[in-house]
């Protein structure tokens, strides 16, 4: 495989990662986010395979015709990719199922809307005011000096 082809593959893999991450960051739709994620993972996997590639080598399978000493590509990245793919599948399935449930609960797939709904839910569950409130935190901040009752008209009592 020529240098050019290898570089093309590398650029392809990196582009997949870039597109995936870019999509992940920019999408607000939950399903698009998951799709972007799988795109980026595909890029990473491709990268991994590419790293194990060896010029002028065959697949690491010993066949009857070949000598045992034939040049083979690195088998370890291939095994790693196999694992990585399966991991990706598991995570995506989980993400999708969460998306489904969230959609059922909130009736939207827009991340921003969901996030604000979630914030409200958290605050409600905690019985606290929403985070935007300007009130002092519960329990009060460090106290102002406690002045005796009739000290009010004598300002700045604590020196």
């Amino acid at each position: 495989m020529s240098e050019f082809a290898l570089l093309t593959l590398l650029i392809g893999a990196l582009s997949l990662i870039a597109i995936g991450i870019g999509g992940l960051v920019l999408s607000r739709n939950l399903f698009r986010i998951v799709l972007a994620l799988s795109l980026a993972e595909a890029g990473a996997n491709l990268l991994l395979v590419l790293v194990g590639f060896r010029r002028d080598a065959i697949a690491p399978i010993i066949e009857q015709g070949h000598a045992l000493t034939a040049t083979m590509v690195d088998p370890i990245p291939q095994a790693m990719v196999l694992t990585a793919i399966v991991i990706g599948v598991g995570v995506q399935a989980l993400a999708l199922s969460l998306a489904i449930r969230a959609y059922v609960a909130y009736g939207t797939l827009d991340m921003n809307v969901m996030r604000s709904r979630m914030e409200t839910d958290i605050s409600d569950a905690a019985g606290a005011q929403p985070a935007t409130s300007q009130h002092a935190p519960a329990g009060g901040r460090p106290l102002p000096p406690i002045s005796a009752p009739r000290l009010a008209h004598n300002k700045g009592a604590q020196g």
Partner: protein
Amino acid sequence: MNALDLLLSLSALMLLAAFLFGQTRVYPWLAGILFTGQLVLLAGSDLPMAAGVGLEIFGQQVGWQLDGFGRYFALITIGAALASNVYMGGEWGERYQADGHSLRWLHAALAGNVLAMLLLLSSKDLIAFFIGWELTSWAGFLLMAQGGERALRAALRYVPYAMGGAMAVLGGLVLTLSWTGTLDLLELSRVMSTLGNGQLALLLALFAIGFSIKMGLLPFHLWQAPAYAEAAGPGTAFLGAISARMGLFALGILLVKLMTLSRVADLAFIDGLFTARDLLAWVAALTIVLPTFTALKQNDARYLLAWHGIGQGGYMLLGIVMGDATGSAGGLLHVFNYATYQAALVLAVFAVMHRTGTADLNSLGGLVTRMPLTFLVMLLGIIGLAGLPPMNGFVSKWLVYRSLMVEGRPLLFLMTVIGTLGTILSVYKLIHNTFLGQLRAEHEHIREAPWSMTVPMLALVILAFVTGVAPGLALSWVAEAQAALGLPVLAYTLGGIESPRGSLDMLWIVGVLFAGFGIGALLFYGAGGRSKRVHQLDNYAGGHFLSADVRYHYSDHFYAGLMHRIGPLYRGSFTWLESAVASATDLAASLMQAWYRQAVPALTLLVAAVLGLGWMVWR
């Protein structure tokens, strides 16, 4: 088991006992006996008292040893605890429990404070010291926090200060370890003064800030008055008498023993314009003046006394910073003297509170006929606090003035005197608004405080008087403390000091003073007609009969003219500082919370990855 082990185990035992049956009637008796035993043990043991147990932990030896300096403070601690304990053991405690508070916890907090302080005072190395320091802080917190909602809130205000101080000390501790390789106090006293100026200045800053917070030196004093004033009665007395002095103890060790005052005086700032020692002296002097005049403004007796407690700390530090025999003796003696009359005063105020239910200086008055013993205690106490003869407060302050005069520090001297004069004004307000003037109708049938309360109060003021007449009694302990610390030792006599440049002999002074009073009495009672006693409620003003239900007691805004002139000079700039720090923290907290509410954390991750990678690749 040697003496210190016994002392500490007694203390621990008491803590355990307080937890187990602190609410019973037996406990105060037991604690009284144990405290007395501890006092006897302390006074009777040979110095230095070394603990039999020691630990090695993370390569550091941790041990305990009590020298003359520590013993001096330990004696005061246990004495104050004993008085508080007796006070707590009687009617006051019953009322406290009846109000729904836990006497068990109060006793436990007191015992815990004593144990923590003993551990601190007898520490042999900085680790043991820090352990004692933190235990003291948190035991103090426990004592402050009891006695209701306001006490709790005031105690919570103490937390950032205490922690800030502790962290400054811890920072100093690890830097010390890193720079000198040791934490043993004895070893450090040899090596610490050989550090470079920069390192020493940083250590001094860290430790001094930590210790000043405990002591309530400016500008770290704001927590102290509410925290001490709002605590449960005997707790206030104990805290006021000795708790803040742990900061002085630590500063004494740091400045005199470890760094040596001459080395501290070497640390010059701004082209030698002033040295670290000057700075400390001035902080002490300002601590005398500002809190004292803040006390003058207070309308709650407890707050008034607590603010004075802050101010009086300044005299002690100033004396020690002067570093000569007279000044340091004065500073150290003031610890004891102050403890005696402050505890008495606080107990007296709480006795009044016990009977009347308030410490508001605008709702009392005329109680002198109702509670004469408490009045006597307060009278002697305020004379001590104001530093007038014949009480012991005069002696220690006199020693400090004397030192400032001899050392030629006119402005510092002026500050101390201003503080004393402010104290006189403020304590007169205290006694006038409480005991003099018009008796309120609702207080007409009030009785004297019970014996369980008057006895410890009287014992304390008698002690303050006796050591005022014969300061040599207390000065023997002080001389021992000075020797242990490596200060020049004061040559004292029973009556004070003997010096060609001006001696002080309290035996003679008090003798003459009372002779003068005697002659005065002779002049007054010996001549002229007999005077007729007018009833307390039989008063006229401007020719108009004042019936008891008309409130004419002049209490509010007592020094109006003075305040008009000096009020603007101290208009809560430290309060402003405190709230500025709190607001800044709040702002930082809001910013950080905003960080954790960002909409697309993945974007942050991406940006971070790119920046980090770029940094790693092209650095």
